[in-house]
């Protein structure tokens, strides 16, 4: 029997880019959050007009102080309400959930390319820290819409080479993450990525034969594998009845493992 539910206290909340917030929460539950790429399922408040929890990635963990950092974009009512919460208010968190990025697939000394798009960037931060600790060389390519949406550039830079792209060219390279990879001729032993589906598809077609891991997003109900809201088809049975659940089999899958 596990206890995966806990009440965490907000120790800080701040806006770090347009519509993007960083929230840090503290509590004993954080002790179990060791795997980058896992996520937590957050009940923003206790009002019943907004029923479901919201899945948010683990962006960073301070195991000693039991602090979980999440970065989120205000999308709709749930994230909007979360952004209004003050220091010392509480949130109900279920987690850690899912299978994260396999750090052990990259040997010390090898190169890992971490590619993030928009609000897919957060889980790469905890991942990068752990890879670096293991002695892996990390390269980051982070894509955003515009300069105003860029966040954590400094933080990633401290861990390794970091290339920023923006769609409108207002910061870094103009274009998509794939443009940066081509332009700077980035090579790697393992690819780790999280971001919008179009980006993951582009990466898959470019690197289908590489060792790579992609983190997917899907609307979730339970977050624990019971409701079947978040299923996808495995590549070997694209039309059949077999399936993978993003919440428990993922959110991280091998490149080519599931139909995007």
């Amino acid at each position, binding site marked *: *029997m*596990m206890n*995966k*539910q806990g009440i965490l206290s907000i120790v800080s909340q701040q806006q770090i880019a347009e519509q993007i917030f960083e929230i840090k929460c503290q509590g004993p539950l954080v002790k179990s959050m060791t795997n980058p790429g896992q996520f937590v399922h957050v*009940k923003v408040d206790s009002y*019943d*007009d*907004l*029923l*479901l*929890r919201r899945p948010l990635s683990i962006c960073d963990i301070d195991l000693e102080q039991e602090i979980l950092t999440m970065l989120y974009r205000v999308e709709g009512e749930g994230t909007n309400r979360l952004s209004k919460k003050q220091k010392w208010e509480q949130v109900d968190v*279920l987690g850690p959930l899912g299978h994260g990025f396999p750090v052990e697939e990259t040997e010390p000394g090898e190169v890992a390319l971490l590619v993030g798009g928009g609000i897919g960037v957060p889980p790469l931060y905890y991942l990068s820290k752990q890879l670096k600790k293991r002695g892996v060389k990390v390269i980051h390519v982070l894509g955003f819409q515009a300069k105003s949406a860029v966040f954590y550039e400094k933080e990633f830079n401290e861990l390794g080479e970091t290339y920023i792209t923006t769609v409108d060219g207002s910061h870094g390279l103009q274009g998509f993450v794939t443009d940066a990879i081509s332009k700077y001729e980035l090579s790697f032993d393992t690819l780790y990525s999280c971001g919008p589906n179009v980006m993951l598809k582009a990466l898959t077609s470019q690197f289908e034969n590489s060792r790579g891991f992609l983190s997917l997003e*899907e*609307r*979730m*109900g*339970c*977050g*624990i*594998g*019971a*409701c*079947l*809201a*978040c*299923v*996808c*088809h495995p590549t070997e049975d694209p039309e*059949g*009845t077999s*399936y993978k659940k993003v919440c*428990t089999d993922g959110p991280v899958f091998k490149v080519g493992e599931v139909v995007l």
Partner: protein
Amino acid sequence: MSRLALKLPGLDLKNPIMPASGCFGFGKEYAQFYDLSKLGAIAIKATTVEARFGNPTPRLAETKSGLLNAIGLQNPGMDKVCSEELPWLDSFDVPILANVAGSEMSDYIEVAEKVSKSSNVTALELNISCPNVKKGGIAFGTVPEVAAELTKEVKRVSQVPVYVKLSPNVADIVSMAKAVEAAGADGLSMINTLLGMRIDLKTKKPILANQAGGLSGPAIKPVAIRMIHQVSQVVNIPIIGMGGIATVDDVIEFFLAGASAVAVGTQNFVDPYICPKLIDELPAKLDEMGVDHISELIGGSWKEVCNIH
């Protein structure tokens, strides 16, 4: 006997709380959180003859105090359910209510016959009302004669008592209930979800890939209470009540309306511990209300008051 224990056809309940079908899979996930033997019963996910993938995603959309789903009867098929899921559940001391679905009458009969033979299935729940199945399904749930015929056929082959799960998407729930009772149903489950839709303002399309879906959660509770209040007064078979249950007060409200047990659906997603929580909280609530045994509450909103003790 415990003040929460109840005996319903095929369901020897330690307490009146069970997870609702489709909101608990086949129990495995929740077994990580607590001992399933604590539950009154378990209503397992709808089972069909063949394995089904269900609908494309997105399959969920939130609404005010509600949840729309269009899972689409995804399940591994009756053979796998009987060879893998049910045997796994056998290690728990809890009666299983097996939810039976299909597109044709013959599907229901086939599944009912096979599944009711499993040693730990103690009752069937005929899902005649799943709003996400496109062919056939709907008619079973909205035409009393068809529902009655289906009930009769399933009763003929089933080894265990049969509960018919009613759809709220009808003009006259009482006729539906009476028809299936007359056809031999041992109990009723109500309600299934209301048909609903949400449209995304950005894409201008329905959020659900299936367009429409089934509405569950607190938003539908008043409809469930009304229907159970109507039906329980005119049938002589017990009702498993559901629709928006999230608190112990909700449980009591369903009993007062006329339910003899309750199922919790959507709230499992919000709080995986909800069922054991409700079970733990019930005795104190009975104390507060001055009620010795939960069965005294059944139909309390319409029964003449009789203070025997």
